[in-house]
């Protein structure tokens, strides 16, 4: 932090879209606060700003009104955006805070617009990475992507997330609904994430089907999160109906923090079968909430959980069903996973995470 002291420099952040209750939005706001606490001027500039955060950020094209000699830009790289081209033209010392983006092939056949957008994001990364004085990744998996894109100096830094939201006061109505379901017996399996092809919720449904057939006929799956892929969400619902699981699969859509806390409190196990994850904030939330995690080791997942979960090589329903069974019924395993999860979550959260990020920024700015 001391690196910032006395330096006449502002470290501003740019982001495609600033949204509340969103991992990158939360990260950006927390980093802004940490940068300010370290002595820098710091504002947020975005292409799109959610109404609830209108007072927290400026449109990216308003940057010249705030520009000063010695400014440094941090770009929160989440997806394709006009901000990328804008920053490339500004010639500011650039730090890429890379949140990974889902590769186009995961959307192929589902969302043509997303395919195009993901491909454009790849081109923008190739444009900005060689210019960046530092690339900050959220996992070694993402760091390799940054290096492949041409980033010469990289570092792995934590996500600044509001993990405490999952242990806050649960929404009473949702908690009561979940408790009523729990009284019917059967395990409650939870997944939190947008309903998109790369999160492979259809594999979760398939796994539930196998788990109910082999071990627990009353088990339920709770899919928490909105969707940005109408076609995939429609196919998923059709699949659920065809398998006769309409009563066993709850698709909640987006929920409040309190409702999310209620879901974590009621869950017996957290299951993720994503085909691609650049980090996986909900995995850490599950560990914070003390819910055992069973997951497919795709992308950065194995690095994120770091031994504190049952990690499977593939979304094989027989394996997943067996792993769910053990995670739900073996108390020694649950205790081991919960204890390891809490330790791992502590490593990834807390005040040290913000300090690590600020130190990385300070190191790059000082060069």
């Amino acid at each position, binding site marked *: 932090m001391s690196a910032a002291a006395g330096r006449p420099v502002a470290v501003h952040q740019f982001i495609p879209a600033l949204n509340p209750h969103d991992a990158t939005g939360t990260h950006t706001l927390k980093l802004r606060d940490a940068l300010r606490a370290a002595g820098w001027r710091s504002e947020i500039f975005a292409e799109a700003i959610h109404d609830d955060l209108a007072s927290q950020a400026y449109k990216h094209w308003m940057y010249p009104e705030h520009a000063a000699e010695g400014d440094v830009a941090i770009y929160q790289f989440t997806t394709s955006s006009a901000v990328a081209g804008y920053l490339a033209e500004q010639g500011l010392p650039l730090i890429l805070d890379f949140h990974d983006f889902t590769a186009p092939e995961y959307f192929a056949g589902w969302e043509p617009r997303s395919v195009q957008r993901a491909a454009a994001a790849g081109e923008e990364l190739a444009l900005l990475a060689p210019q960046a004085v530092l690339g900050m990744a959220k996992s070694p998996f993402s760091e390799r992507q940054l290096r492949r894109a041409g980033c010469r100096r990289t570092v792995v830094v934590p996500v600044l997330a509001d993990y405490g939201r999952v242990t806050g006061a649960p929404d009473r109505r949702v908690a009561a609904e979940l408790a009523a379901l729990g009284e019917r017996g059967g395990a409650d399996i939870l997944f939190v994430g947008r309903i998109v092809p790369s999160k492979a919720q259809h594999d979760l449904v398939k796994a539930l089907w196998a788990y109910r057939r*082999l071990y627990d006929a009353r088990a339920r799956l709770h899919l928490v999160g909105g969707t940005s892929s109408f076609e995939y969400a429609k196919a998923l619902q059709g699949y659920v109906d065809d398998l006769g699981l309409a009563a066993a699969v709850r698709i909640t859509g987006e929920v409040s923090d309190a409702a999310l806390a209620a879901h974590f409190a009621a869950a017996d196990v957290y299951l993720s079968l994503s085909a691609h994850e650049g980090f996986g904030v909900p995995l850490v939330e599950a560990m914070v909430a003390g819910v055992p995690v069973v997951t497919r080791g795709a992308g950065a997942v*194995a690095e994120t959980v770091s031994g504190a979960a049952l990690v499977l090589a593939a979304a094989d329903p027989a394996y997943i069903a*067996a792993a769910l*069974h053990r995670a739900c019924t073996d108390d*020694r395993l649950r205790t081991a996973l919960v204890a390891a999860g809490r330790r791992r979550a502590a490593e990834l959260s807390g005040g040290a995470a913000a300090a690590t990020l600020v130190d990385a920024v300070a190191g790059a700015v000082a060069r």
Partner: protein
Amino acid sequence: MSDTEPTLPADPQAYVEQVMAEIADEVRLRRASGDLPPKLERELDELFLAHSPVAGRGGDLGEALRMVDAATFIDPVVPVESERAAGAVVKKGMRSLLLWYVGWITHQMSQSSSAVSRALHIVDDRLGDLERQVEVQRIPGAKVVEFPALHRPDAWWVEPAVAAVAKAPGRVLHAACGDGWLVRRIDAAGGDAYGVDPRAHLVDAAELGILDLRGEGVAEHLRAVAAAGLGGVVLTGIVDGMAGGERTQLLTAIATRLAPGGALVVHSVSRDAWEAAGAPPEADLSPGRPLRADTWCRLLGDSGYEAVAQPGPGGEDFLVTAVRSSITTPYPPSER
């Protein structure tokens, strides 16, 4: 989830690893008992694909074009039915007011779509012509070439091949699996194996209720396998006669599907055996010829494997065992 206070295992990490091994055993037992037959798993996949848009179903150009044609016309005359008495009248009025505007836009969109559709049909026709021309000069895919004296359960290379993949960090694929005798051996040694073979009649005759065997080619199968989804791959009788391009494609596909620390095992006959008078006819009909053992080691070494070759006792064949090395691996050493 019991009422008694659970105790933390003395070595939690070791206990988690023990549980993973027990899960693998449990899955083998379940599969062997027919609780979750492989056929059923495939049906689950197909059921989901039935809900996916056309491009998600395999990319048949003809089917895609039929969907484009069906979607080309955009109807500006919106339905006006309503559950409320005045609703239909209001909707009809709005439609009349807006039809000149919406109709003008949709007419242009329909024309644009028709132009695109026409262009795609021309591309389809020309591709058809090209395919017919290429077909004449096509290099045939390699056949499965089995030497009865070498491809058998008591052959010298079977034990080392099984040992190389029995503790693999994930499922083990055997191609070409025939009736599944090697799959059974790997399962018996503690691995979780399945097989593919393009000779569907052999697979159909096998004990599919117990063994997970699939009647398809290895390249076709690997396209559907997720990245790092396999712990081991055993190739017998399929690489010997491959042309260079086909072999390169196969090795590239395997490299992406094999998990870090996974093993690739190749059994191949020598060139002398390949050229011998008693070699099966498929050897003559294959476009390529077997590589030498040293060439395999070099090829796999260049692709990021640590490869070792074992010559057979009669000089007729050899076994190459290769482990995919990786700087970072999600698997602890004990699981490799």
